[in-house]
């Protein structure tokens, strides 16, 4: 039995996972059209490499990675690009993003797929393949996986596969592990090869016995693999908390897991690594849980770009549905204002979309009006980052951003545990988001001012230099003229 370690705090919200685990993963049918955003990952937007009117094949590159942290985007099916324009996507800013609209031709015609045997390639080559296959973290952050594999000289002792899935309602990883355990484990072997890691730990919360059994069976022939059952506690699946649980190590603030010899990937990411290398299939689809206020909660293998409302329609949202959440009920993103009439906005499913929850007042009753903080410190008791949320709240609402930073505001992972337990119903996380964005904005302003000042100083320097050069030239010319004169005078002799 492996020793597990506790992290501070955590909560036990009702799981609500059983609804969507009754049936096997279904395949969402081909939608009428797909909107594929070029920015589905952390980092730079991919550069479009197709034109309106182009016919594309399933898996064809349509967005080229642009910049160090970036990832490729592909056509999820064969069809015609009908437009490339700004469209609404699920993003906290609510700003539209560049998307390619694809009208499927229904033939699902693939490009030529090139499977590779990973053992015959160097890690660097494989990283490039993953980058071009658009593989990003599927746990929610959508960070390009190839970047996480570029570890330089660091030695990785432990590779962790995150199958914790601690957030209520979401079951896509659970179902993936139940049904495709062997592929996940193959993917993990590839990741281990690229990281040259020692052991592989697969952390799964104890509320997923079927997934644990399936994964255990899949690792039977693997060396140095272990499925570790961890206690179900939110946010036990947050990378840093999971690393702590499994290894007892804390990733130092502002550092990366690789700094302490650990790297962590979501199980679904491992699965797409396997598909990308062993089958030559770029990341074109993902498992999405559709649950909440629907008639039949289910997990769907969904093409990236599928309109959320077409996906939800498959599960039949109940009439009192008044909003949709992309993600879980703790950290998910609202897809449009609650209580606004009409269906969900036409945002597409993206690589980060693990779950769509249909919301209603019955499932998510609006909280009572917030009362003042009474400093009861229930928030501090549940904070997995050992912060003092009541103090951060105080500084944020007083706009004392410097103090908020001194009290480690940026170590907050926005898990929402503090808001969950607050007896005064204060939207604490919202205050932290506000404070963080204000600080970022000020930082940007300062940077802009700094670079403007630098430009101005350089401008002055250049004028000065030009003046000097001119003066020097003039002096040189004068000297030359004088010299010439004197030669003439001499020659007169």
């Amino acid at each position, binding site marked *: 039995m492996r020793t597990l370690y506790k992290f501070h705090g955590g909560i036990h919200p009702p799981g609500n996972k059983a609804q969507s685990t009754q049936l096997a993963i279904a395949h969402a049918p081909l939608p009428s059209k797909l909107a594929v955003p070029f920015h589905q990952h952390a980092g730079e937007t991919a550069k479009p490499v197709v034109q309106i009117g182009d016919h594309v094949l399933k898996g064809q590159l349509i967005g080229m990675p642009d910049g160090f942290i970036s990832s490729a985007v592909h056509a999820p099916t064969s069809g015609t690009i009908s437009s490339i324009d700004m469209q609404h996507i699920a993003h906290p800013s609510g700003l539209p993003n560049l998307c390619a609209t694809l009208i499927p031709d229904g033939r699902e015609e693939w490009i030529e797929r090139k499977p590779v045997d990973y053992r015959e390639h160097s890690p660097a080559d494989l990283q490039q393949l993953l980058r071009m296959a658009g593989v990003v973290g599927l746990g929610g952050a959508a960070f390009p996986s190839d970047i996480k594999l570029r570890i330089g000289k660091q030695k990785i002792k432990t590779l962790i596969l995150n199958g914790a899935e601690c957030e209520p309602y979401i079951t896509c990883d659970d179902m993936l592990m139940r049904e495709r355990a062997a592929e996940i484990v193959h993917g993990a072997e590839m990741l281990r090869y690229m990281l040259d890691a020692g052991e592989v730990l697969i952390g799964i919360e104890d509320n997923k016995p079927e997934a644990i059994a399936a994964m255990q069976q899949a690792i039977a022939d693997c060396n140095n693999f272990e499925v570790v059952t961890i206690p179900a506690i939110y946010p036990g699946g947050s990378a840093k908390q999971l690393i702590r649980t499994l290894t007892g190590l804390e990733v130092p603030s*502002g550092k990366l897991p690789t700094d302490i010899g650990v790297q962590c990937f979501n199980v679904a990411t491992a699965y797409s690594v396997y598909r990308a290398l062993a089958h030559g299939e770029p990341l074109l689809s993902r498992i999405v849980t559709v649950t909440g206020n629907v008639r039949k909660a289910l997990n769907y293998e969904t093409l990236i770009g599928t309109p959320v409302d077409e996906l939800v329609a498959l599960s039949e949202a109940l009439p009192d549905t008044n909003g949709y959440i992309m993600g879980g*009920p703790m950290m998910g993103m609202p897809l449009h204002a609650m209580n606004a009439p009409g269906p969900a906005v036409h945002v597409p499913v993206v690589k980060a979309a693990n779950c769509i929850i249909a919301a209603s007042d019955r499932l998510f009753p609006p909280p009572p009006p917030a009362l003042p903080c009474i400093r009861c410190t229930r928030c501090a008791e549940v904070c997995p980052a050992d912060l*003092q949320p009541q103090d951060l709240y105080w500084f944020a609402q007083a706009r004392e951003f410097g103090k908020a930073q001194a009290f480690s505001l940026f170590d907050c992972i926005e898990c929402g545990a503090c808001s969950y337990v607050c007896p005064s119903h204060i939207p604490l996380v919202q205050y932290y988001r506000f404070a963080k964005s204000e600080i970022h904005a000020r930082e940007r302003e300062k940077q802009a001012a700094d670079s403007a000042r630098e430009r101005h100083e350089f401008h002055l320097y250049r004028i000065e230099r030009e003046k000097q050069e001119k003066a020097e030239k003039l002096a040189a010319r004068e000297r030359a003229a004088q010299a010439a004169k004197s030669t003439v005078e001499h020659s007169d002799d």
Partner: protein
Amino acid sequence: MFFSPYISKPDSVSQIMLKVLLALIPGIALYVWYFGPAILVSITLASLTALGAEALMLKLRNRPVMPFLKDNSALLTAWLLALSIPPLAPWWLVVAGTAFSIAIAKHLYGGLGNNLFNPAMTGYAALIISFPVQMTRWVAPHGLEQGGLVMAELSFAEQLQYIFLAALPQGITLDAITMATPLDTLKTRLHLDESISQILDMPIYGQIAGHGSEMVAWGFLIGGLYLLASRIISWHIPAAYLATLFAIAGIFHLVDPAHYIAPLFHWFSGAAMLGAFFILTDPVSSPTTNMGRLIYAAGAGLITYLIRAFGGFPDGMAFATLLMNICVPLIVLYTQPPVFGKKDGAFGKKDGVFGKKDKLK
């Protein structure tokens, strides 16, 4: 409102306060049993005054009245103050004290969640300084003998008459029905050079401390244990307070048992139990860090003992609380626990404000 998290625990400030009120009931029941129903009159008077003052202040401050009246915090202040005042105190004393607690100590500091000082104890301090005579006339417990005679007792009607009209029945003087508290008596008698054992032979003393009042302290202890069990308070404050009081009283008692009474007496006398579980634990005016709570409560235990043993007031709970309230911001600042991934505390090493992002670019 529609942003994450969309779910929350069905818990509220008013429920927390209600549970604290409920936890006071065993103590109050024993109070009534030993000292008669007059305390219920004080509690009722204080409650009505508190709600009235709360509503008035909210109105004056242009704040919504109903949500705050329903939070039960004003009631809790009222009950704690009423329990600190002699039960036969005149009605205006209760009303003035409660109004001071709510209007001055709570609302002038910004209302719920913003008061630096414990409102009930601020009200108590104002009263004991302004009306020391009325504040030290405690009613004798039921069936107490003095000089071989059972002390006179007032009926409930007579108590009401005294509270509201200051009129006593024919032939009964105030001295016949009131007395100094066991703590006060101990102090006065020690000044008269009596020894502890002589003093404890007096009928006003029971098994551990004051006859009757020791049982009320048991009631508060039971209520306090309920608060601990239901996780409304953490163990740090009551444990550190009682342990410090016990340790200091114990040291003095061991050195000079004739002049310093045993530590258990201190636990079960005065407001020690009520204070340990109900007053010092007020979340608004106590530290937010666990280490801070230990320091705060230990300081309060020390001050309580010093006032009881060497000070001018019979009990030290109120001043101990208020003096330690002053220290709370400083204590909190210096007891910040280490943040995840920052072994050396919140103000320790920092790797750039934006951590990860700085690292990768």
